């Protein structure tokens, strides 16, 4: 006597209890506070905010904690929350030229107004595990801080622009309404504003690999880091009743302007072109990868042959989202036995036909052999 499998509900409840237990970990250790996560695992929190498209360090810290440190799961949690939020206003474009700089490096000029500023970077650290962090940690020294100088940290792209050697900053006509990929279905070919939105929330690893592929010759773009800047930018909204914009607060962002060689075309003179990256929080790797992929995706604008994966909009933009990707890859673990049964039936039938045919052929061969023997 066979009894059909039952009890899905109980099984789910028990699995969730187990998950809660594992998430908490050993009870003799104190639970992590959100402030600790936001304060000490801040780059993890930044990545979650960036790929969830929601700037809120404490909620992102909660997501990291709830997800047991699984970044994509944390991104997913924060995105699902973001979906439920009302749209109260649309901010003015961020004025990154005016941001308060924490880090700013240019690879194209030795020195420039505003200077080179290393900021809190892993660059030039020797990647040696630090035993001092293993136990009771000594308080690190308080870093020296300089007063805000008020000196304008001019953008490298503006320097090149002054000389007329770089293409103009991308602009749409006055009638263009900026798209919103979280409110509208993707529609190919996609204009650059929505492409950049997809890249900004795209998976860091996926963009990194694509960017790397362009450097290795799959859609080369001859890039130079015009500038990377990290710092705090004001978010402003315009109040129609007042007729001017008011600041809402500041967010930490990373901006990368990649400068790429371009030999010119029938329509355009030889000049440098741009690739752009902008990411919430401190995430240089993502901003750089984004700007390389942005430039690669502009191939058709410059009449370049589309020959590499990173230049292929539909390919890049349809697969950049890690929440979508993980969902669909992982859905294969859901039961598929109904479809598998249908396939089983077909393969069995085809196998039976195959065996029958082979048996028939073997029979013929036997007959030939016996004839020859006679």
């Amino acid at each position, binding site marked *: 006597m066979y009894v*059909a499998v039952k009890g899905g509900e109980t099984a789910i409840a028990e699995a969730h209890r187990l998950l809660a237990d594992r998430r908490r970990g050993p009870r003799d250790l104190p639970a992590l506070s*959100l402030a600790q996560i936001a304060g000490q695992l801040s780059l993890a929190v930044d990545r979650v905010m960036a790929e969830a498209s929601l700037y809120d360090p404490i909620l992102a810290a909660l997501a990291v904690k709830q997800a047991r440190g699984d970044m994509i799961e944390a991104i997913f949690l924060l995105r699902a929350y973001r979906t439920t939020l009302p749209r109260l206003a649309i901010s003015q474009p961020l004025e990154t030229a005016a941001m308060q700089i924490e880090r700013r490096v240019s690879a194209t000029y030795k020195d420039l107004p505003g200077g080179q500023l290393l900021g809190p970077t892993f660059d030039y650290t020797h990647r040696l595990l630090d035993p001092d962090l293993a136990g009771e940690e000594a308080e690190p020294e308080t870093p020296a801080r300089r007063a805000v100088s008020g000196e304008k940290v001019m953008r490298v792209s503006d320097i090149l622009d002054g000389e007329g050697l770089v293409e103009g900053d991308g602009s749409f006509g006055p009638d263009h309404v900026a798209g919103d990929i979280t409110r509208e*279905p*993707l529609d190919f070919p996609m204009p650059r504003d929505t492409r950049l939105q997809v890249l900004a929330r795209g998976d860091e690893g996926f963009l990194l690999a694509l960017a790397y592929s362009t450097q290795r010759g799959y859609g080369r773009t001859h890039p130079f880091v015009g500038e990377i800047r990290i710092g705090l930018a004001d978010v402003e909204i315009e109040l129609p009743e007042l007729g001017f914009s008011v600041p809402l607060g500041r967010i930490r962002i990373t901006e990368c302007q990649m400068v790429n060689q371009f030999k010119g075309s029938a329509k355009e003179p030889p000049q440098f072109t741009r690739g752009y990256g902008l990411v919430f929080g401190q995430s240089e790797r993502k901003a750089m990868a984004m700007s390389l992929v942005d430039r690669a995706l502009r191939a058709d604008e410059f009449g370049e042959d589309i020959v590499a994966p990173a230049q292929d909009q539909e390919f890049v933009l349809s697969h950049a989202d890690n*929440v979508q990707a993980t*969902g669909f890859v992982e859905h294969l673990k859901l039961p598929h036995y109904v*479809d598998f*049964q249908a396939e*089983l039936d*077909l393969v069995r039938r085809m196998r039976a036909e195959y065996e029958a045919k082979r048996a028939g052929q073997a029979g013929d061969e036997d007959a030939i052999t016996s004839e020859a023997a006679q």
Partner: protein
Amino acid sequence: MSAIEGIARTNFAYLDEQTKRMIRRAILKAIAIPGYQVPFASREMPMPYGWGTGGVQVTAAIIGPEDRLKVIDQGADDTTNAVSIRAFFEKVANVAVTTHTRDATIIQTRHRIPEAPLSEGQVLVYQVPIPEPLRFLEPRETETRMMHALEEYGLMHVKLYEDIARNGHIATTYAYPVQVAGRYVMDPSPIPKFDNPKMDRSPALQLFGAGREKRIYAVPPFTEVKSLDFEDHPFTIQRFDKPCALCGSTHSYLDEVVLDDRGGRMFVCSDTDFCEERREAGHVGPLGVPA
């Protein structure tokens, strides 16, 4: 921590009203153009893409306090993902649920159409992973959209015919493409082709939601749904040579259950509600016991 305080509240059926309106408009256009995939701004749901977010959004946009919801996966009400989706709607819409096909006003399904005939007034909501029937021939959306626009389905027929030439069979056993109302070729979602005939002229409204791919499509009631085939190779469905071991049914889709490590197998109805009703009505299969 003011941000934390605001997390708990959600609207009836989870989605905000603006999102529901957007989905509702898409549903109406989908009904007006049977089989055509209407793009919609699919939202992130609190469950993974590929796990029924499209179906869940369609259900959330149509469901009301008067409804009775049934959720099945592989034909069964008790599979884990069906349990999870049903629990979601119980929580966010406080809606009555049922496992009985006949009692349900909305049936959300993954991979099956119930065996019991559906009736007018019922809505069948399919969860769809890949809505584009031409996708396995052509990965590009820009290309497939053009093929639908021009009603250019020759490639699909060629592919099916190549199967016949090579294997003597059309090697598509599930997600078998159909043509709706004589125009659009449509993916019926990964139901076994056994279920395809149930779509044809069904009295129920059939809605399809693909969340990750952001498409909604529909088959209105009493609409012709024809499985693609050829004159010399007409469409046929799988037949089982054994009855259901529990209820003895000879005309339902069966799951294969492995009983031991010596090749022991049994076949039981995939539609658990159908099987239980038959047993309650006194039908007994070779391995079953009277209810």
